[in-house]
């Protein structure tokens, strides 16, 4: 515990580059390369629909070292599978709570609705997450 806190503090000091895993529906974000300029270490997982955001994927992403996980799905009413994005949102919410409960801070897990190809919204989502993570420090379970 003490070790991870120390890690977090030292990292905060030294402009740490957050590692963010982005799960995105290909209908929401068509080209993930727009996120390259965010200054974060981005790992992208393309999904055919927001509903492919399985709960365990979010956790596995944290396990494999992500400091934050972001799901980008279509706005409500625009899902190709009609309810995929709504369900994704609920899954993320549930996992946020779980992540909170295990003490990792649910703010590491976020879902954003992005209109098709709205790259700027996607960038904003990443920036917001990045700034959240900056205050949280690196994933202590990484």
């Amino acid at each position, binding site marked *: 515990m003490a070790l991870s806190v120390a890690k977090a503090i030292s990292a905060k000091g030294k402009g740490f580059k957050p590692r963010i895993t982005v799960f995105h529906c290909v209908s929401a974000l068509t080209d993930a390369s727009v996120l390259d300029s965010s200054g974060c270490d981005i790992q992208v997982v393309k999904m055919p*629909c927001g509903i492919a955001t399985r709960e365990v994927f979010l956790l596995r992403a944290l396990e494999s070292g992500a400091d934050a996980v972001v799901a980008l799905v279509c706005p409500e009413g625009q899902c*190709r*599978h*009609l*309810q995929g994005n709504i369900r994704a949102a609920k899954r993320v919410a549930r996992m946020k709570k779980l992540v909170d409960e295990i003490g990792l801070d649910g703010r590491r897990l976020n879902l954003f609705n992005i209109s098709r190809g709205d790259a700027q919204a996607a960038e904003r989502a990443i920036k917001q997450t990045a700034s959240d993570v900056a205050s949280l420090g690196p994933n202590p379970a990484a």
Partner: protein
Amino acid sequence: MVVQQRIHYGQASRLPEIVETPSRYRNPIGKYIVRRSSRCTSCGRCAKLCPYGVHVRYEGYSQPLRPRSDRCIGTKCEANKFFCVRNCPQQALSVGINPIMETLGDYRWTPEMIVGHWYMAETGNLPVVDLEYSLGFSGGGFDKMRFRIPDKKDYVDIPDVEIDTSIDLNRRDDGRPQRTLSLPCYSGGMSFGSTALSVIVGRARAAKRLNTLTSTGEGGYPLEFVPYRNSVITQIATGLFGVREETIQYAPVVEFKYAQGAKPGLGGHLLGDKVTPEVARMRETVVGSALFSPFPFHSVYSVEDHKKHIDWVKEINPLALVSVKVSTPTDADMVAVGSYYAGAHIVHFDGCYGGTGAAPDIAKKNIAMPIEYAIPKVHRFLIAEGLRNKVCLMASGGVRNAMDVAKAIALGADGCVIGTADLIALECVRCANCESGRGCPRGIATTDPELGCMLTEEWVEQRLVNMYMAWRKQWCELLRQFGMKSMRDLVGRSDLLVHLDYLDEDERRKYTPAPKPGAAL
């Protein structure tokens, strides 16, 4: 054996009965999806409103069933008063294009064409859902051809039963019986071994009811065919599997298969997995060992050799007609003439792009010429040789739907031989996995004891009857538009066809553009 009568639907006004034959699967795939959310309070309003049966609620059952999305006519229903999405008091319903359409089908058999044919096979009618079931994405051939916009004056308003869609198979005037089919098409060979017994027997039963034919393929002649033998062509292929004196004597038509469009120059290949004890018995071979049909006929190296074969068959069965099935080489026209002189009644050209149980991809893609080129080529040459009226020209290999058949006929064929469409009617999804392991996961192209029991002969028969009856409706409407009463009048009427690539821009705009993959999504 008696000389067969000339009967066809134009004269005998009785068409085979259409019986609704639903999908074997719980969840039929349609163009649209409808979802009900947990906001639903089971009020049952949608079930009362929907005239298409998307929302079903059993009498006395307190909940509507899961929506039958395949019946939904889609977002265009918005214009209707009964549009369920708007009428739901809880806003619990949503409708959209089914994204699964993107995964289904391919350039040639598009998702809408597949779904449309499922619908026809189920109902015997043309789909009410907006589906483009006559044109594919292939970007050439039939998919670029259209029938000319007809002159409204030409329309003849006569009922379907009065329209003649029949063809004659014997045009040689050689004393052999006439055989008139009620439809301008018959079913292509699918062998016992490659395809489930229930499928091939079901096809024979459908052929009998439709007064047309099906073919044994090269897998032998199962006894189950005997009751329908008047509708079953015996195929003689290089493997000679199951070819015996009596199976030739059973047949109204005997077909020499020199080549198959999808794999010409390559013998048939049945993988070991599919050689079950039944198949082995039928083909007189060993269980579990792969079977290659040799190529070519080792006794045929010349037109003279070929004639010898035909004479032999004619001797064994004096009433049989003879068909010669070949692929479409550069010199297809010469082959046709050669076949005629050797004594064939039917010359059957199988173009590339046709279906097959299994073939190397390199062969399927590159083989010979598409049937769209071969038909006018052969038709023209036969006319020049003065032989066009002496031979029945059948086309196959990529003839997918009723309009393809009509186009092929307008290009110069007398009729078409249909394979893949039959399987689509039986809910084939074209996963192309016919050959591997246990074979078809849908239970069609398999002899696996478990998978092969997924469908019954009755179901197969009725689905096929339904589909062909739906096709006939399309043909009848087409003929009426051009003021024709018989399919025979359409033969060689290529003047009624246009090809989009040969039109000027403004002219082209008048016709349905070639659909593009994923356009709906």
